[in-house]
């Protein structure tokens, strides 16, 4: 049984077909990478899967349930979470509060209880705060707990995206270029976090340009080019695929 199944998926922006007739499945508990040149439609595919965009045609199934056209918050309820390549950080909140937003669905958010600050709310928040601090330390943000998000450097914000996504305790985690713009040491740290998350049983879908990272941790790779599937398979298969070498890896 597949965790995520995409059938005949297409989206059109005006005359541009960003994704065309795409089919693939993702098995639970695997690391699935999506690679391709810039403009291949990787982020568009993420936006389709997570409900940010509605597909023009095609269907998406999560746990064998049709979820095409569902809003992101409904998909989040089904265990989906993601990070954004072009950071989507709440700059009006602290770093810790950003991560705590990730725990939204795990907390009591009854309006009356929140307005009256019932003990259940403060207790829940205290536990959540502790967990979120641990998460931030795990991704190397221990020094930024109470920092204003707006005052944090780019590399830290990338990790903040990951911490917020992990705070939701997803079963399916989509990471959009988590290592972009990070230096070698930071990339290695993120690499370790992703491996640990995958080992804990979370299904990871990864968009990434860092081939060393992709080849090292992926169980399965999907290669996109101009919105179409160019190739698919294990890292070994993809690496030796002549079409991939021609279109993407070029002279590697």
């Amino acid at each position, binding site marked *: 049984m597949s965790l995520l199944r995409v059938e005949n998926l297409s989206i059109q922006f005006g005359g541009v077909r960003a994704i065309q007739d795409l089919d693939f499945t993702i098995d639970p508990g695997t690391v699935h990478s999506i690679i391709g040149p810039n403009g291949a439609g990787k982020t568009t595919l993420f936006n389709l899967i*997570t*409900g*940010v965009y509605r597909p023009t045609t095609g269907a998406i199934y999560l746990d064998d349930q049709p979820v095409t056209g569902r*809003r*992101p*918050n409904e998909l*989040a309820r089904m265990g989906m*979470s*993601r990070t*954004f390549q072009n950071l*989507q*950080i*709440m*700059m*009006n*909140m602290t770093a*810790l*509060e*950003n991560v*705590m*937003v*990730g*725990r*939204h*669905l795990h*907390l009591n*958010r*009854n*309006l009356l*209880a*929140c*307005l*009256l*600050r019932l003990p259940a*709310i403060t207790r*829940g*928040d205290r536990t959540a*705060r*502790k967990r979120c*601090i641990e998460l*931030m*330390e*795990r991704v*190397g*943000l*221990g*020094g930024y*707990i*109470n920092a204003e*998000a707006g005052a944090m450097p780019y590399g830290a914000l990338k990790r903040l995206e990951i911490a*917020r*996504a992990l705070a939701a305790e997803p079963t399916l985690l989509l990471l959009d270029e988590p290592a972009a713009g990070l230096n070698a040491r930071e990339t*290695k*740290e993120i690499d*370790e*976090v992703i491996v*640990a*998350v995958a*080992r*804990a049983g979370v299904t990871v879908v990864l968009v990434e340009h860092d081939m060393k990272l992709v080849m090292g941790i992926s169980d399965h790779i999907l290669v996109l080019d101009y919105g179409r599937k160019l190739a698919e398979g294990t890292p070994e298969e993809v690496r030796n695929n002549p079409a991939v070498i021609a279109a993407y890896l070029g002279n590697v």
Partner: protein
Amino acid sequence: MADIRPSGYSKHRKPQTYSRRLGTRATPAQVLLSERVGGMLTLLVVIAVLPLLLTNNYQYDVVVNIGINAIVVVGLNLLIGYAGQISLGHAGFFALGAYASAILTTRYGLHGALALPLGALGVGLLAYVIARPILRLSGHYLAMATLGVGLIINIVISREAWLTGGPDGMYVPAIEVWGFELYGGPVWYWIVAAVLVLAVWLSLNLIDSPAGRALRALHGASVAAEVAGVDTTRYKVMVFVLSAVMASVAGSLAAHFSEFVTPDKASFFHSILFVTMVVFGGMASTFGALVGAAVLTLLPQLLADFASYEHMILGLIMMVVMIFMPKGLVPTLSGLARRRRARS
């Protein structure tokens, strides 16, 4: 996946001790300086001391009006400052609360203490019905739509003279409690103060709760909030209704306090005044809302001596403050104080 904190990182900094100190336990001094405790204490002290300085009815009148405006602005700040949605029609909800109290007490003989919650309930329902379609809009479009809501309420109140007394307004009886009429500044001072403290307390509670973080999150990064599971539409509607109800309650209080209501309570200018108080005092700051309401209610009174120059001077002061303190009075000043403390 217990311990995968990147090795090597802690050699450069000591995140552990730093975060433990700041993240989970605050010192008594930090608690006292926090917005929740420190701000609330300050408000209570001001409310307790202020009557000692008030010597006549006129002064009570101004202070009670500050309190009434502050209740509206605290609610409006939740909508504008925290959730990032604009409303140019909240005077409409204020007026509906005022007229609900006026009409239910005079024409239907209801007790004032019953008319107030009934009015608030009605306004809440109306706001809910309005909010669902218009909060799909944003920016200028939302501003236009809420402006329209305010205008329609204003027109209905002015035209339906059989019910509202039309442009002449209508008389509102004083609330009677155990044979004692609630009348005059000193009595209303304590009533309005109690409701204001309640409004501030609820507001402070909300913003520091899961629901409040959801509101701020949809303001800061709407898509990311959705992805985290926040039903952004639902929260926008919720905060719109909440702020409308608070405006309605303030309107009812104003009606019983002044014992008279007129359609200009629902005027566009009145709506703008509320929004200006939010922005002037400081967006996303509950105590900024109080300061904004206080300063902008007080200033016209203080400038009354300048007669025809009054509006010019008021406009000038507002321009200067907004140019030099674009975040509003309270956030700018508290930021300044925080930086000074950090330096010393």
